[in-house]
């Protein structure tokens, strides 16, 4: 049976490198439409990762919300703003070198911190498989206040987006 | 001018009111369902399936239907009725008939066509040539399978155009008898009046 676990491990690492590659695609590609599609692929990869962590409710929500809704809005925006000819202008501004150096420094610092701290991995948590019912009850009992606040924020965003994007109808 | 008021307002043609929102659509669904079910057992002429499986079955041709012209000969293809007078060539609206009168060795015109071509790719099946021909020699055929790989094949020479009088009887029985009767009468009148100047060309009353 350990072959299957080995296969799962290799699968997880492959998935992670895949997501990183797609993320690089998002940042580096000149054509905006291609980078949006790379983001979609990265999000699906991350949903796969959640499945690997046996958080299947979250994987489904991630695909439903991110890939289904957020990506569609982004592609709508791309379609409305880019004219069909699609001649790609330069996509990166001048600060790319200083930004790269700064981020590299940040990464080394945080990586050192991650590798040194002894993460308290408790055996009990590993076994527990969070089911959909668990999340449902948590949402409705412990986190009911943030749940209501989120719905208010969503309504506010909805109305705000409509007002900003609404075109004053031509007379 | 606007006649909205001047006619009697017919209540009958007020569009029927719809009991509830989805009613019209449900009636439409009922009509298609009814057609679907009855298509299995209704006879073709009252609304059943009337498709004809073309290559195997074929719709019977109507007698008067006109497709492409053809020449008639009485006994042998060498003696067609046509006398190469050229009236049909002149009257054809699309100019698709070309006639050449035969000449014997010392140049005297014979009353026979040497060449009679009809360009089937130009012909529009109007049937004028059949009407204007004084010698009842050109008629409209029923045969419509004339597809060809090359436009040159559609230029029909005389040999291909000539068809026997019996074929003419087979496709258009009524017209054929009327014309034969007219020709027989004209022949007797001519025999009876042989001493006198031959009668003018026989008037074929079109039935």
């Amino acid at each position: 049976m350990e072959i299957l676990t080995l296969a799962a491990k290799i699968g997880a690492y492959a998935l992670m490198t895949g997501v990183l590659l797609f993320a690089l695609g998002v940042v580096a590609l000149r054509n905006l439409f291609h980078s949006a599609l790379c983001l979609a692929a990265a999000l699906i990869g991350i949903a796969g990762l959640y499945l690997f962590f046996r958080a299947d409710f979250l994987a489904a929500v991630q695909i439903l919300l991110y890939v289904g809704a957020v990506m569609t809005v982004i592609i709508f925006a791309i379609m409305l703003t880019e004219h069909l000819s699609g001649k790609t202008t330069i996509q990166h501004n001048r600060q790319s070198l200083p930004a790269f150096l700064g981020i590299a420094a940040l990464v080394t610092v945080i990586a050192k911190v991650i590798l040194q701290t002894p993460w308290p991995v408790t055996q009990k948590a590993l076994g527990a498989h969070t089911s959909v019912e668990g999340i449902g009850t948590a949402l409705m009992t412990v986190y009911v206040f943030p749940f209501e606040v989120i719905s208010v924020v969503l309504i506010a965003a909805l109305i705000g987006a409509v007002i900003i994007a609404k075109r004053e109808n031509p007379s | 001018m606007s006649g909205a008021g001047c006619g009697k307002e017919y209540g009958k043609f007020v569009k029927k009111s719809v009991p509830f929102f989805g009613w019209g659509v449900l009636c439409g669904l009922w009509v298609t369902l009814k057609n679907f079910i009855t298509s299995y057992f209704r006879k073709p002429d009252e609304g059943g399936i009337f498709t004809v499986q073309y290559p195997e079955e074929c719709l019977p041709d109507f007698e008067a239907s006109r497709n492409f012209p053809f020449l008639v000969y009485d006994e042998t293809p060498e003696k067609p009725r046509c006398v190469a007078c050229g009236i049909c060539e002149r009257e054809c609206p699309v100019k698709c008939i070309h006639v050449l009168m035969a000449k014997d060795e010392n140049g005297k015109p014979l009353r026979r066509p040497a060449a009679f071509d009809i360009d089937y790719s130009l012909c529009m099946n109007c049937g004028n040539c059949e009407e204007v021909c004084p010698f009842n020699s050109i008629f409209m055929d029923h045969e419509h399978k004339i597809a060809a790989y090359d436009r040159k094949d559609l230029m029909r020479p005389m040999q291909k155009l000539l068809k026997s009088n019996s074929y003419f009887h087979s496709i258009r029985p009524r017209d054929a008898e009327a014309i034969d009767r007219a020709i027989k009468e004209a022949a007797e009148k001519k025999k009876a009046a042989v001493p006198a100047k031959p009668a003018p060309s026989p008037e074929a009353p079109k039935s």
Partner: protein
Amino acid sequence: MTLIPVEHVLIFSLLLFAIGLYGTLTRRNIIGILISIELMLNAANINLVVFAKTTSLSPETGQVFAVFVIAIAAVTVAVGLAIVLALYRSRKTIFADEVHLLKW
């Protein structure tokens, strides 16, 4: 979950966050910036889930917070793109460095 040590996943989400940050800083197109912000939010989400699975007492908290983060991300995209559309309609351009009325 015991298959992969926690550190590897954290390194992975750190790299993802770094790529997102790089994208936000260097892209000229505002939609490109919004896309990179999405990447950063996702990196944070992965951390939430991993910590919930390995270290916390009640395993659902991580996933519930992840759901809230996804909702917030949807809000940012919706409002951000509404602004982008209004901007495109009035200025015909959506390049961040060309929209510089406040700069003198």
